C-alpha cells in the first residue's frame, strides 16, 4: 500500500528525466508522483495543467517519445529513458510556433487553462496528419476539453496552421 511509502525527503530514489532536450535529476521525490506533478512542482515547468487527474480533459498533454499522453496518468519514475516534450519546449528560444500564433490570431484562447494541452495536441495532430478535415480535427482533439470557447476559434486556428503549412511547403 502506498500509505507505507515515505512521502517527502525520505526517499533515496534518484532518477533522471529528459524534458525538452534537457536532463533533469529528480531527488527526494515521493515515488508515487505523476509526471505532471514532477514537471510542475519539481522541474519548474508549470505549463502543463491539471484539471481532472484522470485523463479526461487533456490539459496536461505532453509528448512522450512522439506520442501525445496525459501526463497526469504517467508515473514520473516510469518516464525515465524517454524523451519528453512539454509546451515550454515547443518554440525555440521563446519564439512562438505557428500553432501558438494561430491560437492568438484566431481567438482560440480565453481563460487559457486548456491552451497548453491543446497546443501540444495540435502540434502532434499536424505532424501525423498535415491536412486534416474538420471532422478529423474534431476527433483528434476530442480528448482536450475547453470550457470557454466552444471550440469554434480553436478549429479555425488549426485550419489556419494547416493552410499556412501547405502554402509554405
Amino acid at each position, binding site marked *: 500500500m*502506498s*500509505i507505507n511509502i515515505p*512521502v*517527502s*525527503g*525520505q526517499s533515496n530514489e534518484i532518477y533522471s528525466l529528459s524534458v525538452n532536450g534537457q536532463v533533469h535529476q529528480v531527488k527526494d521525490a*515521493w515515488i*508515487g508522483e505523476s509526471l505532471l*506533478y514532477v514537471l*510542475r512542482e519539481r522541474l519548474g*515547468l*508549470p*505549463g*502543463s*495543467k*491539471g*484539471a*481532472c*487527474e*484522470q485523463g*479526461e*480533459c487533456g490539459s496536461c498533454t505532453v509528448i512522450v517519445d512522439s506520442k501525445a499522453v496525459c501526463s497526469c496518468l504517467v508515473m514520473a519514475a516510469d518516464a525515465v529513458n524517454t524523451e519528453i516534450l512539454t*509546451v*515550454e519546449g*515547443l*518554440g525555440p528560444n*521563446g519564439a*512562438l510556433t505557428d500553432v*501558438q500564433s494561430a*491560437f*492568438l490570431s*484566431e*481567438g482560440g*484562447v*480565453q*481563460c*487559457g*487553462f*486548456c*491552451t*497548453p494541452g491543446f497546443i501540444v495536441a495540435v502540434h502532434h495532430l499536424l505532424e501525423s496528419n498535415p491536412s486534416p*478535415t474538420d*471532422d478529423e*480535427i*474534431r*476527433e483528434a*482533439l*476530442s*480528448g482536450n*476539453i*475547453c*470550457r*470557454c*470557447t*466552444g*471550440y*469554434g*476559434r*480553436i*478549429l479555425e486556428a488549426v485550419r489556419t496552421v494547416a493552410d499556412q503549412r501547405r502554402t509554405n511547403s
Partner: protein
Amino acid sequence: MSTTSASTALRHGTLGTSASRPDGVAKVQGGFAFSSDMWADNMLWGATLRSPHPYARIVAIDVSGAYAIDGVVTVVTAVDVPGKLTYGLIVQDQPVFAAIGDTVRYSGEPIAAVAADHPETCQRALAAIKVTYEVLTPVTDPEDCIAGVAEQIHPDGNIFRHQRIVSGDTSVVGAVQVEGEYEIGMQDQAFLGLESALAIPDSNGAGLEMYVATQWLHEDRKQIADCLNIPEENIRLVLGGVGGAFGAREDISLQVHTALLAMKAGRPVRISYGREESFYGHVHRHPAKIWMKHHADLNGKIVKIESRMVFDGGAYCSTSPAVLINGITHTQGPYKCDNAIVDGWAVRTNNPPCGAMRGFGVVQACFAHESQMEKLAAVVGVSPVEIRLLNAMETGDRMITGQIMDSVAPVAQCIRETDAIPMPAPLENNADLRTIPGGTGLTAQPSNIRRGVGWGVSIKNLMYSEGFDDFSTARCRISNGVVTIKFATSEVGQGFTMLAQQIARTVLGVDEVILDTIDTQVGSAGSTSASRQTWMSGGAVQVACQAALAQLFDHVATKFEMTRSELEIDGTDIVDRLTQRRVTVSEAISEIEIDCTEEYHHPPTEDLDENGQGNCHVAYAFVAHRAVVDVDPELGLIKVVQIATAQDVGRVLNPLAAMGQIEGGIAQGLGLAVMEEIIVKDGKVRNPSFTDYLLPTFLDSPTVEMVFIEEHEPKSPLGAKGIGEPPCISVTPAIANAIRQAVGRELPRVPIRPYDICL
C-alpha cells in the same frame, strides 16, 4: 506638431478591433501564472477534510492522528477561527468549519484543514483525523420545505426566499391555454482551472497577502477579514490567474481555510483542489421545477402567464434569493405580457449548495417559457417563428414587474436575423460517421436519423438588481510618458484586460497601455458576473481615462497654446479643431504626471414589493437561437448539427472576443440540454469527476452561425451590452425543442437523456 490629418480607419487595438489579449502569449507558451501555479519559499500544502454525510451531527473531532504524521505542520478546525464563524455572499450562514455539536448540512461540508509538506502527506493527515458523526436523515425534497413538514436544518429556517409577482388582471382567461411542468437538472460550471489560493502571512503576523482565483477580490477580502478578525486593510488580495469562472468563484471556497492555515502555521500555504473536491467546493446551478401556464387569444397573443417556480438552493444561502428573483422576473421571456401571477420559492435542503452560474436563474425560467412557446405555436397552428414575432417585446413595454423596458429591445430583429441564416445541408446517407448521433460507435444508420429544428429566444438582465450599487473603480495614471490602468476587475478569461487597453487606447490616443496588477490596492470593481464588467468596469476605465484626458488637454492647451475647448483626440494626435494644429499624444504626455481614480455607478434600482412590483433590474439584452439536431430515435443519441443565433450586443467592441463568448456560451447551453448534470441521490453527489460528469467535447460542439445585432445602447457607457450570459440561455430550449420536434415527445426535463428519448 503638424497639421496633417490622421487616418479615419480604426486603429489596431482600439475599440471595435480584434485587439490582442495582453495575456495571450504567456497563455499559449504555458508561462501564464494561474493561481494553481503560484509558489512561495517555505510553502506548505493545504487540504480540506469534508463530511461524507449530507446531514449529521458532529459528536467529536480528534485531530491527534494527523499531528502524528511526519510532515504535518498545522491542523485547523472551527475552534481555530478567530472571528466570524460563518461566511456567505448575501447571508453569512455557512460555517467556515462545521463545529462539534453542530451539524454538517451537505455532503462535502468542510470540517478541518491541514497544512503539510506534500500533497500526499495532506491526504494521509486527512485520513488520520477521526470525526464521530451522529448520522441524520437528510432533507432532500424542496416541496417538504415549502409545505413546512421538513425538519428545520438551519437556525435561519428552510426557506431562503418566497416571492410572488402579481401583475395586471389575474382573472383573465385565455381562449387558448397551454401548460407544462418542467425540470432543470443541477449543472456544474466545470471551469478547467481548479480552485487554488496561496496565502503568505506577514512576518509580524498582523495580516497576509493572498493570491486567489476569484470573481470578486473585494468581497472575498471582506469575508476573509471578518473570519480572521483582522482589518481588511491588513489583507492584500491579488488575482491569481483564473482558469474560467462562470459563477462558481463568486462564493468563498478555500479562501478562508487557506488564510487560517497560513496565519496559524506562520508560513505560506497553498490549497489547490482536485476535480472531485471542486465539485464539493463550489456552488452549482440550481436545479428547479417550474410549472407554467400560458393563456393566449386564438391568434396566439399571450394574455396571461401563471407560474410556480421552485429552486433548490441546497444547504446554504449563497445567492439563492437573487437567483430566484431573476427566475421569476423573467417568467414572460422576451414577450409582451400584461397579466401574470407567479409564485417563486428558493429553499434550503441537504443537497449541495447552489448559487451563481452563467444565466443566473434565467436559464431555468427560459427553459420553461420557450418550451411553452413551442406548445402554444402548435396549438394555435402557427410556426415557432410566427408565435415569437407575434409576441415579441419592444422598448417601452411594461413588464410583469411594472418596470418599463427602457433598454434597446430588438427581439423581432434577433428572431428575423436568426431565421435568415441558411440551414445546414441535409444529412447524407454517406455522411462521415463522426457527424452522426453515436458517432464512430456505428450505432445509427443515417437513413434512420430524424432531424429536428427548434427555437429559443431569451431576455437577460444585466448587472446586479434590487437596489444593489455594484459600482466599479478604475485608476488611470500618466507618468514619464507611460499610461497605466489599474482596476480590481477579475479577468477570468473573458478578456476584460484586453478591453481595458482598447478603451484606454481609444480615449487617450496612445498605443501602449500598461496594466497594473489586479488586486485590492484600488477600489472594488464588483463581481465578474451578471454580464456586467464590460458595462461597469468598462465604464470605470472610460471615465478614469476621460478624467485624465481632461487634465492632459489643460496641460496641452497651455503648453502648446491650443484652444482648450476645441481639443480632441484624432488617432494618436491631439488636434485643435479651430486651428487644425496637432501635437502627438506621446509628446503631450511626456512631461506630465496625471493620476485619476474614478468610479462608475449604474442608475439605482429598487426592491420588489410583496406583489413583485418594482424597477428591480438595470438593463436587458436579448438573443435568439435556432437549433438543428439529428436524433437516433432507437438509442436516443443526438448530434447538434448547427446553432444559428442573432444576439443583441449593443455594439461590438472586439469581434473575435464576442464570437468566442457566443460560441462558448452555446457549448455550455448544449451541455445543459443533453449531457451535463450533477446527479444527486439522497443528498450525495454520484458523479464528481470528468469521467462521469459529461462535458461537450470538440465532436459534440456544433457549427455556430452568428449575427451581431448592433444597435448602440444609449444607457451603456460604451454603447455595448454584456454578452457573456445570453448565449447559454435560450440555446438549451432551442435544442430541446428540436429534439421534441424530431421524436414527437414532450421531454419536459433537461438534460434530455438517451432513455428519455427512446424508452
